[in-house]
């Protein structure tokens, strides 16, 4: 535990002093382009390795329970980050804090140097695609209606919406006939793809996924994992994915953060976690979940 904390603190402290000047300017530029989200194909990267989201000393209490106890984290642009941990470790709450769906008791979260607050949330929301466990689709809208909704409420012209939806459907190998179906007529995997496409509709810079594959059977899960990775590679988003599945974390994550009871147990690559565990808990968590060797081949 102390080693893990040290690591995160180091990461958390190093960034601000180093990059403040130039990146702040970039962030303003990004904001400017944000007002025309559809015209922007892929966000211009100001610096190869700049941090896109920073979490600074965040505490969160829910009822009598301390869900997050002083989290410091940063997420690099255009990489896939995994928040890993058992249920109740605070990983979903952390994600929801980044989205502005909850407020931190203390500390702050910066997205492109803009603090996440109730005031900035509506402004940040179009840049943060959010995907939840079973898709979170609106049952009264067709698949296409769900995907188009974020653009529709922002008054995009119909033609542009249609073009964008079919572009996205192609990206996710979603058959056009499925688009007219309602959520209750879709399989779990299909729902999840629709949910993902809805999150990508406005071409956000970030994609935040909360256990996106948790409700799927193994076959659907594995095929969707492949599809997701392909999509992430194609769109070059900053992806933050919450999961409790170590295999999934290894499959997706450029960087993995293992959370334990509201604190960071360790952050690093999967290799780091496996070979240089920060403490006994890391080893315990990884070994408890490591799939049998036969399954790996």
């Amino acid at each position, binding site marked *: 535990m102390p080693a893990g904390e040290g690591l995160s603190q180091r990461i958390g402290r190093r960034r601000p002093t180093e990059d403040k000047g130039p990146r702040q300017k970039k962030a303003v530029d990004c904001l400017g382009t944000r007002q025309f989200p559809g015209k922007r194909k892929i966000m211009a990267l100001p610096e190869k390795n700049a941090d896109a989201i920073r979490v600074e000393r965040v505490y969160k209490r829910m009822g009598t329970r301390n869900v997050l106890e002083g989290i410091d984290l940063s997420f690099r642009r255009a990489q896939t980050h995994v928040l890993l941990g058992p249920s109740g470790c605070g990983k979903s709450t952390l994600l929801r804090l980044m989205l502005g*769906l909850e407020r931190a008791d203390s500390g702050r979260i910066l997205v492109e140097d803009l603090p996440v607050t109730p005031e900035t949330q509506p402004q940040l929301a179009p840049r943060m695609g959010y995907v939840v466990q079973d898709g*979170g689709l*609106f049952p*009264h809208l067709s698949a296409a209606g769900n995907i188009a909704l974020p653009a529709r409420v922002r008054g995009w012209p119909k033609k542009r919406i249609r073009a964008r939806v079919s572009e996205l459907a192609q990206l996710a190998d979603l058959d056009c006939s499925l688009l007219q179906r309602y959520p209750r007529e879709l399989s779990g995997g299909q729902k999840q793809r629709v949910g993902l496409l809805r999150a990508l509709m406005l071409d956000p810079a970030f994609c935040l996924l909360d256990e996106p594959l948790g409700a799927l059977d193994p076959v659907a899960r594995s095929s969707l994992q492949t599809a997701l990775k392909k999509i992430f590679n194609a769109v070059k988003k900053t992806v933050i994915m919450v999961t409790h599945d170590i295999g999934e974390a290894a499959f997706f994550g450029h960087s993995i953060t293992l959370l334990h009871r509201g604190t960071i147990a360790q952050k690093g690559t999967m290799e780091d976690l496996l070979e240089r565990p920060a403490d006994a808990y890391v080893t315990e968590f990884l070994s408890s979940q490591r799939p049998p060797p036969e399954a790996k081949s």
Partner: protein
Amino acid sequence: MIRLALLLSASLLGQTVLCQSLPVIRVGSKSFTESYILAEIVSQVIERTGEARVERRFGLGQTGIAFTALEESKIDVIPEYSGTIAENLLHRPELRDEPALRKALEPLGLVISGSLGFENKYALAVNPSRWNLSTLTDLAEHPELHAGFSHEFLHRTDGLPRLRQVYDMRFRDARALEHSLAYSALRDGVIDVTDVYTTDARLEADRLRTLIDDKHAFPPYRAVILARASLPGLYPRTWSALRALEGRISEGEMRKLNASVELGRIDFGAAARGFLGDSTTKAKRHEMPWLAETRRLTWQHLELVLISLCFSVVAGIPLAIAASHHRRLAHWILGFSEVVQTIPSLALLCFLIPLFGIGTRPALVALFLYGLLPIVRGTYAGLLAIDPQLREISRALAIPPMKRLLLVELPLASPNIMSGVKTSAVINVGTATLAALIGAGGYGVPIVTGLALNDNSMILRGAIPAALMALAAHWFFEWLDGVIIPKGLRA
């Protein structure tokens, strides 16, 4: 829907604004045969005098409604009884003669004529073949009898309470019964004794015996004409023509008139003409062709239900939306609409007369209020039932509040909203029949008149179309569900 409502209310306004040159005297009646006939006689006398034309506001539900209408000058003149005026309007039972009553009425801005010549007292009637009794003192010795009394009689101080006081009267049970139904109940032996009026036509026809009030418990009920005090000054010739009726109607005459309408099936107008010595008498009860009459009543009924429903929807849905956003407000809004629902319809109509007069307007307001609860509750429940995850996703998508409401929340709640609207419509089709009691027309008219005349076929002429309209409303809204509820939410 809204446009239709506007159109209908505009046409309604047009009707009321359209006036003829002569001033109007509004004649009221209560909803029993004798009151209809006397009011018709009064109306025809006014029309013959030619100082004013008459607007007939007949069939006002009960004494309370009639008095309120008079006090609020929604009607100008109504046939009444001295005892009723003393007991129910003045609450001074000791006043027994006309001069004393006239004096007491002065501060209320009302005036009465002298007695028209007959008394219509309360009396208790029994079937002499079952119970050979002759006085109320005899009756007091038989506490094993089943009684069925009109609501009014049960509660008027000069009704059952007075009997209990004077005769120490007891019954095995005393049930509340609509007066005109009491006769058939008495004939069939369902009840043994009921309250009657001494001029009731059916007393003779059904061979019933009225018991002698040997201790004079019931005050005298001499028929008089009760009018607003301004009437004699405004229409002196009319008033003297009305006063010329004093002493002209004997008890036998009145009973004959009642019988000619109830048993001889002559209409009120013809009976009155007959009394006033018109040659075109003994015509059969004038009846509009059935189809035309039903069509007219259907329009009136539809107008009542549709307009009130539109307002309930327009007010109810926003109220429920407001309630779903503020817990405390929800408390008040739901509480209010629930309290309204518990007010008996007739009482609500009565409360609304001082504010909205009689006729269509108070009926619309009452129906609007009754229609609120199902819609408010349905919408509120529908909004609360929205999956919190979906709410959160609409926040994560930063959908602006108005669009969130229109594109997400209301569509998701639409099945509940629609079922609330449907319930409200079906209930209002039924409730609207009561609107006839305050002169708003609709299917209630044949029901109320049929009850007064104890004419089942006439009652059915209102009841069956009302039931069919309720069914039609149900089917219409089932169909509308398919149009309004998004396909993804339908089973």
